């Protein structure tokens, strides 16, 4: 006992620390778990409501038939949502990427701060304002009808700042050493950017594009003034005929006093949620790196 007494205080101090660490650990884990439950719970709840309520309407008819009054299916709306979302993407992805490249690679240009500011402002503009703007300019001034083209342009304007800024961020993550390596070989700017920087930043760029796609699928307000609604499948006219989309079915049918309309609204909500979920999963997979291709700067 006499010889063991000397080191005893240190052991006790250590166990004190251990106790504190255990408590902190416990608190940390507890808070993470609560956060997870809140988010995960909300997610599961939304999915459950959408699936349970949409369940009655979720038959084969929903995906094989078009809407007839307040019944029928949602084939026209599913098709319209996909066409509008991809139409928007075709316009916004090249432009947004080009702007992102300009911001990240040619920062010394005078226009860069202006573009960056405009992109940030555009994110904050309510989507209904963009919808109305497109209505005034495209439908009224240019004389287009409610149409795929008008709707796609509205969605493109909404997507543009997201694609632009995520591309810029992703390109800025490309290490200087890679750029220098390419320049030192005598490569021109275009080859350095398109051959090295863009491929290296591609996962990040694609994440931004998919985010924009998910936003497009979920938008309603900008389409009300530009795409309107249609009970029929698209016949291929770009500027002449209106087109249906899922979020319209949710927005318009939920307030109707018919059970069949409610069922369609929930079925539409189910599909929108499903699409967004699939897009999110896709964007996670884009970020998963192939084994053996791990970038050294993430080590």
């Amino acid at each position, binding site marked *: 006992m006499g010889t063991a007494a000397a080191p005893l205080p240190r052991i006790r101090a250590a166990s004190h620390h251990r106790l504190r660490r255990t408590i902190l650990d416990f608190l940390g884990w507890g808070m993470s778990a609560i956060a997870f439950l809140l988010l995960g719970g909300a997610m599961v709840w939304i999915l459950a409501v959408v699936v349970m309520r949409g369940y009655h309407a979720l038959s084969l008819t929903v995906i094989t038939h078009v809407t007839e009054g307040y019944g029928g299916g949602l084939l026209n709306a599913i098709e319209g949502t996909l066409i509008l979302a991809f139409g928007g993407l075709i316009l916004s992805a090249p432009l947004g990427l080009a702007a992102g490249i300009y911001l990240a690679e040619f920062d*010394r240009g005078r226009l860069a701060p202006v573009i960056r500011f405009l992109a940030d402002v555009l994110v904050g503009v309510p989507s209904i304002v963009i919808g109305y703007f497109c209505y005034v300019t495209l439908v009224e001034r240019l004389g287009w009808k409610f149409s795929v083209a008008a709707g796609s342009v509205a969605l493109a304007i909404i997507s543009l700042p997201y694609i632009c800024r995520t591309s810029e961020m992703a390109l800025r993550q490309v*290490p200087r*050493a*890679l*750029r*220098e*390596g*390419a*320049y*030192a*070989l*005598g*490569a*021109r700017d275009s*080859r350095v950017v398109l*051959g*090295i920087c863009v*491929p*290296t930043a591609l996962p990040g760029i694609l994440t931004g594009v998919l985010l924009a796609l998910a936003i497009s699928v979920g938008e309603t307000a900008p389409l009300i003034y530009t795409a309107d609604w249609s009970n029929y499948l698209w016949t291929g006219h770009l500027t002449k005929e209106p087109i249906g989309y899922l979020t319209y079915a949710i927005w318009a049918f939920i307030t109707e006093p018919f059970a069949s309309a409610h069922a369609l609204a929930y079925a539409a909500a189910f599909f929108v949620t499903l699409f967004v979920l699939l897009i999110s999963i896709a964007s996670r997979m884009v970020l998963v790196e*192939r084994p*053996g*291709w*791990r*970038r*050294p700067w993430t080590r």
Partner: protein
Amino acid sequence: MGATSDAETICPTGKTISSEPQGPLPATAAKISVRHLNFFYSRRQVLYDIGLDIPEKKITALIGPSGCGKSTFLRTLNRMFETVPYTRVEGEVKLDGEDIFGMSVVDLRRRVGMVFQKSNPFPKSIFDNVAFGARVNGLKNRDKLREVVETSLRRAALWDEVKDSLRKSAYSLSGGQQQRLCIARALAVDPEVILLDEPCSALDPIATAKIEDLLFDLVGSCTIIIVTHNMQQAARVADQTGFFLLGRLIEFDKTEVMFKNPSRKETEDYISGRFG
């Protein structure tokens, strides 16, 4: 400024160094000749009145303590410093008698290749890394491309190790292999001069020996300039050695002379490890 006064106090003999080339002129023609070269990061001068002739198809080593401007000097020779916005250079650098500042920078860098201290392979396959160098030169034909990739990898003494895994990521290679891959990539452009900035600093002795052997093979066709912190390496590989101190070229001479009988005290002190 601070740097200037430091330089003057620690290196009081600086003013006696002329910008004319140090030591006897090499027997072969000068591939690169530098005169009165000053270099500035913003207002801070880091190279002072450098003058030297780099002999053609020889290995030239540059040594000196950390921060003395070796990398900066190397980066002026292929104008890589221009990727840093606030840099400025004064003086004359000629490649085969032609002013490099009057050339197209793209052409210059194709003629004067560079290998960096930290190997920086692209996140591509081994094949595409080397092919990038060849494609920069305008090569498109697939068979030709394959041929250039193979010869470049052979010249970089890497072919036997990677010939069965050309489609694998460059990052699946070891550090020494990655550095040789970067050399192969530079060789694929078929440069006349290769600048190497401490290419072996992250490598073990075996990988270092491989790269040194490689330099001896290359020097028959290229002019090589290598920055190194390793005195033995400079003594082993270099025909000529230049000693930098605080932004000045103190001495530039045949390697044997530099190591056995340097004419300046600073060189002797540095080489014998008395400072730096």
